[in-house]
């Protein structure tokens, strides 16, 4: 969606506004609690939102995407059956092996988070200052139609390595349960004039975090 035309104004919002509707609270909490069951990882859950039909992705409210993707994942992993979703009645206790988040553990789980860096992986091929070219198509090269974190607006662009973040889990693999496949991750800087036909300002830049396999020397 980065770079898309036709969207309207950005509407600022006061700092105290957190949830506009009560169901937003529940959707957030349910999604976070669902994420701790141990049935999927963060990349799988992002992909589940992206896999919503394009028309649903466009028309659903933010937390509606979350809750819909959550329902899809619960059925996909066998935690719920389609019948249970359709009837709204549990056919019995869950039969999948899960960790159920308890109130007393919430603070610890949130504080721990889920670091994505790993100790080992391929050797870094690039260093800050190197010129790199991004893969020509923003597609998952392993799984047809699969998850990728390469934004379409950067496909084929040339940039400069700005920072080496260390070695991070590759979402293109992890979202499909194909292993973490950690790789060097870099912040790559692109000149606005190399990305857009009508850049606002010659000196402006976009920086994105890109995995080593998305890049080749330029």
């Amino acid at each position: 969606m980065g770079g898309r035309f036709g969207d309207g104004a950005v509407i600022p919002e006061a700092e105290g506004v957190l949830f506009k509707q009560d169901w937003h609270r529940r959707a957030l909490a349910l999604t976070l609690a669902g994420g701790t069951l141990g049935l999927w990882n963060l990349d799988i859950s992002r992909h589940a939102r992206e896999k919503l039909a394009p028309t649903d992705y466009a028309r659903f409210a933010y937390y509606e995407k979350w809750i819909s993707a959550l329902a899809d994942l619960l059925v996909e992993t066998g935690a719920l059956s389609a019948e249970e979703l359709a009837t709204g009645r549990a056919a019995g206790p869950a039969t999948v092996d899960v960790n159920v988040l308890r109130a007393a553990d919430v603070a610890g789980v949130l504080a721990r988070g889920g670091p994505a860096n790993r100790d080992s992986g391929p050797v870094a091929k690039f260093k800050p200052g190197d010129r790199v070219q991004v893969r020509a198509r923003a597609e998952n090269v392993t799984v047809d139609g699969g998850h990728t974190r390469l934004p379409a607006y950067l496909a084929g662009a040339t940039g400069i390595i700005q920072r080496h973040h260390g070695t991070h889990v590759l979402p293109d693999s992890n979202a499909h349960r194909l292993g973490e496949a950690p790789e060097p991750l870099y912040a790559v800087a692109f000149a606005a004039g190399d990305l857009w036909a009508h850049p606002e300002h010659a000196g402006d830049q976009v920086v994105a975090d890109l995995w080593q396999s998305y890049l080749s020397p330029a």
Partner: protein
Amino acid sequence: MPHDHSDDHPHALLPSEPALKVQALETLLVEKGLVDPAALDEIIDTYEHRIGPRGGAAVVARAWSDLGFRAALLDDADLVLAGMGLHGRQGEHMVVVENTEALHNMVVCTLCSCYPWPLLGIPPTWYKSDAYRARAVREPRKVLAEFGVSLPDTQAVRVWDSTAEVRYLVLPQRPVGTEGMDEAALAALVTRDSMIGCGLVAAP
């Protein structure tokens, strides 16, 4: 309607009204023993009352007040923030980027809505909007204008698209006329939007 693919997804079996959808799913998950309602309340309470932009504001105020802290923060934010208890979910890998006379930083997630939760709480509606996600990378100055921010031509804009698990916090410029203020007073000046790069910190 163009052909709608949503029927193929299990979620289409839920009520179509979002509030009912959430309620149906919560009821089911609790009945199945997969979710503890008290844990849901605890999560909500955490983000409504404990984790929010005042965390980030305290960090900014200290960085303005203490040059050693500022240097350490810019060098290794994870180490510094973990020491302050401002680390965790959606902020496991933090990078703090500093605004200067020559450079204004701004943060977006074009792919979804990645945001430094331990420092800023849950993202505002606009940060998650199609409009911000689409436009921040292509026309950041027009977006800034909608926040009432106008930057000189001599200041470049660098937009950080949060495409991985690294989260960015903007260290805004300290306003002039705040020399005598202590950290608490400074923190009160720091807005959430200024730490996303969609606002400037105004003099008191």
